[in-house]
């Protein structure tokens, strides 16, 4: 698809991200984490946190798929040609159970690049700034999605 220069100015609705103990434990277990700060409230408090600490990759920029907070369906990208190229986090404050974050997705870059095997690839970077109830910045997440020139398998 052609690059749409207006996407950089589009605003997507703000969403709420509630950090729950059960979800932290489930997430930590799915990744094989052993550290009790993710499972045991007493251990988390002994380590200086107010409650269970979320693992480093816990925040979500949108709810898969076709969520109204997910900019991708609105941009016309082909989901079968879409790859997750890169994911980045900046940590400003510990993320613990009981916090309620607000986030808003912004497209910070959208560019075309010549693929190594020919054809055009599109790189889109979606940034989410997560703030707590006091408006303080907790985390910034950046997700780079790639639309390949051909379905991913054929470009392997």
């Amino acid at each position: 698809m052609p690059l749409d220069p207006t996407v950089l100015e589009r605003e997507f609705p703000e969403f709420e991200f509630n950090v729950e103990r059960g979800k932290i434990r489930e997430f930590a277990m799915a990744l094989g984490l052993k550290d009790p700060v993710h499972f045991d409230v007493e251990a988390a408090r002994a380590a200086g946190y107010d409650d269970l600490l979320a693992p480093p990759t816990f925040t979500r920029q949108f709810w898969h798929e076709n969520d109204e907070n997910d900019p991708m369906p609105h941009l016309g990208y082909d989901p079968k040609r879409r790859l997750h190229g890169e994911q980045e986090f900046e940590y400003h404050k510990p993320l613990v159970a009981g916090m309620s974050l607000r986030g808003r997705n912004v497209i910070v870059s959208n560019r075309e690049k010549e693929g190594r095997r020919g054809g055009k690839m599109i790189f889109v970077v979606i940034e989410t700034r997560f703030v707590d109830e006091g408006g303080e910045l907790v985390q910034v997440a950046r997700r780079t999605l790639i639309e390949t020139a051909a379905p991913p398998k054929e470009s392997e």
Partner: protein
Amino acid sequence: MAQSVSYAKWDELTEGAEREITMGPLTRTDFVRFAGANGDFNPNHHDDTYAVSSGFPTSFAQGMLQGGYVGKILSEWVGPGALRTFRIRFSTQAWPGDMVICKAMVVRRYEEDGERRVEIEAEAVNQDGASLIKAHATAAPRG
């Protein structure tokens, strides 16, 4: 139940200090459990029929599963609240049966914002040595 974890001290996190853990062999159950935990229900990660129709030989791991494994090695090494930045670049898919060997190394010690920090480069490779992801992190170890 979770066991206690001991984090590396600042003095141990010298340039060239390394940590390695091996996860896997990956199963479809690992993908499904992670889908429930993180909400990535892209059918390519649990539905073989759909994955084949997308041109893949079988379902494969969410990139953030391997990314999370590298997050685990880092947070259980330098301390869970110590990370300041973490960047993951995805290279190749990981398939059922694959091992995920995560390696991390301190490449620099420095000071920033009044904190002693380390810069870490990490990689996850499969059993054949093919790179699954490359990662970069900065952290302020407590100890």
